[in-house]
């Protein structure tokens, strides 16, 4: 496999994963900037989306699930906001944060209860199983193209909705001046509920298309949840553009680092420093370091640019 081929293929995979991350982080960012709540249960909605889609696919197939599962997750999200979060809101931000934390814990247990502790067999539909095109010698699966298509369509729809429609304009106004919007006669709590439901539905959709590309198991929420937090911090709290850039960046970092087998001592050798091979740290490969790279990036961002890549405010 040539270098160019490696870079192109990994880049495609990275962008696919990054777009999926953006589906999650966009909802999280919208909810955060509107209500000031960091939704710990956001990744749990992603998990619910995958499990719902799996259940629906065993009954009637993949395509109805693609539509129904996100709507169901969105409805659950709206109910959670209406009857849970709003009650917790009375006790302040810490209570809200704790509520979503408890909710994530609870939802994982519910998934254990209904679908068991092992992964479920949620498969890619036959129509999407195959090769879309061949790049040099590597096959690019149709399903990855499908994921990209859905993500981009969602991105465009979100953009149009936020900037070109009446609801979008009210949401944007409510982001910064909720009191003024309320004074103008709009029902701000209902907008909050809609945004929370919408964000949950986006997370659910990400689960529907991500659950079968990766693996559908009870641990999937925790696995992706902390990465999404890193995305939101790196991009800048409350910035949709930042979340987009950070999603693609982290998607690429993760895919590249998993695919690279050079060790730290090899890297230092490139610049002419030869490391002692005996300590295990110099023999660590980039692949082994892959799980901590996102967090290292986050720490670096927090030290050198605390408001994130494109964040407007510093808190």
């Amino acid at each position, binding site marked *: 496999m040539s270098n160019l081929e490696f870079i192109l293929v990994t880049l495609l995979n990275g962008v696919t994963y990054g777009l999926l991350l953006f589906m999650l982080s966009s909802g999280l960012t919208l909810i955060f900037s509107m209500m000031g709540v960091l939704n710990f249960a956001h990744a749990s909605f992603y998990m619910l989306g995958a499990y719902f889609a799996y259940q629906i696919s065993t009954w009637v197939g993949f395509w109805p699930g693609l539509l129904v599962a996100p709507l169901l997750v969105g409805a659950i999200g709206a109910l959670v906001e209406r009857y849970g979060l709003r009650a917790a809101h009375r*006790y302040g931000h810490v209570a809200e*944060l704790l509520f979503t934390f408890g909710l994530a814990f609870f939802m994982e247990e519910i998934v254990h209860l209904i679908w068991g502790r092992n992964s479920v067999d949620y498969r890619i539909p036959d129509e999407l199983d195959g090769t879309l095109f061949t790049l040099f010698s590597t096959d690019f699966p149709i399903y990855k193209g499908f994921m990209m298509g859905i993500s981009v369509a969602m991105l465009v729809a979100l953009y149009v909705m936020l900037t070109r429609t009446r609801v979008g304009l009210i949401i944007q106004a409510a982001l910064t001046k909720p009191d003024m919007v309320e004074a103008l006669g709009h029902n701000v709590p209902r907008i909050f509920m809609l945004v929370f439901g919408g964000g949950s539905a986006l997370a659910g959709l990400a689960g529907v298309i991500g659950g079968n590309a990766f693996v559908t198991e009870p641990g999937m929420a925790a696995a992706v949840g902390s990465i999404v*937090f890193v995305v939101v*911090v790196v991009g800048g709290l409350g910035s949709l553009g930042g979340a987009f850039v950070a999603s693609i960046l982290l998607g690429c970092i993760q895919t590249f680092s998993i695919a690279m087998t050079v060790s730290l001592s090899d890297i230092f050798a490139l610049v002419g420093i030869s490391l002692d091979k005996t300590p295990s740290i110099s023999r660590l490969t980039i692949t082994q370091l892959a799980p901590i790279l996102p967090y290292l990036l986050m720490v670096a961002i927090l030290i050198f640019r605390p408001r994130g890549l494109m964040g407007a405010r510093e*808190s």
Partner: protein
Amino acid sequence: MISTFFRRDRLLLWGGMLLVGILLPRFSSSGLMISLLCQIGIMMIFALSYNVLLGQTGLLSFGHAIYYGAGAFATMHLLNAIGKEGSVVHVALLPLGGGVAALLLGILLGWVTTKKAGTTFAMISLGIGEMVAASSLMFPVVFGGEAGVSGNRVIDKIGLFGVTFGPQVQVYYLIVAWVFVAAMGMFALTQTPLGRMANAVRDNPERAEFVGYNTQWVRYIMLVLSGFFAGIAGGLTALTYEIVTAETLNAYTSGAVLLMTFVGGIGFFYGPMIGAILIVIMQILVGGITHAWQLYFGLLFLFMVLRAPGGFASLIAIQRRLYAAGLFGRVAPWYLVSGIPGALMLVGLIGLIEMTYAALSDEEGEGAIATIKLLGEDYALNTFGPWLAAAAVTLAGYALLQLANRRLFREWNGALATLQGDND
């Protein structure tokens, strides 16, 4: 400060608690009981150290387990390092080494995490916690990989006055001593100017800054101290179980200590201790009966967040105030009246959850009909009967509870109004 600390009622309370701790194994010295008590003691220190952050300084951390884990691993390595050379005294003091290790880790990481308070701190602590947990599997020399690091706490066969820390009950007394010392230390911290400043930083950082304090420094020092005490708790785990795995510093442990502290009550010094007792009992005793204990735990937590965000400690505190004002008698009967339908609803709900678990976890293989045992009778779950009964009990309990609560809340509000009226 000295005088507040040595007030007579406080001395009585602390002495009483120490006495209870010493006498408990007299009543029941079964292995389960002793290990339960050991775990409670360790978790008390851990939860108290967590409350130094959350309750005192207002820092919500999702990665406190890294300090606990650091203490545990450091203690284990120290134990293995002193090997045959050490004595019992060394072993008893080892948790201090764990505390110092955690303190050093706090000095290193705290500088990054405490730059900001609030939501940002919560996220950074989560990220740092994940980072440490992920890197723990990368360095098997230090963290022992999947198997963890194990050791032997009996390094002195003869021991001092027969104390070798071989029997679990001797470790229990060591834990009691450490709980006492650590709790005293943390209580003393709340009375120091630094502890008071931490409260100010929690409540109004702008004003604290304006008075001339550097809020970041206050947060930093409090985090380092809290890490120190968490490290002591970790060191005691290492001695108790003689094995430390990477699980001690992962997100699950961080979450558990948060839930424990919050359910107990973050507004009172003794709150986290109540939480530790409650949660460990749930974990070990309820966890021994049903697989669903985490579900119950999640429900309890959500209920507390929505209905009693002050935790159990605040509920106790309110009763104490009512009692002191002679109003407790007015409310108490209505607790009973509400308690009966409440218990009914709980029984129905537990039935529903247990039946769902039994019906869905077909471990006996395909085709076998799931059953549930109640009072020695087996009921098949493929009929509507048990489900309807449980649902009916739940709903009836709920309806009656709503009815009873109406009266309870009226009495309750009346009592509270009188209480506040008296204070004016």
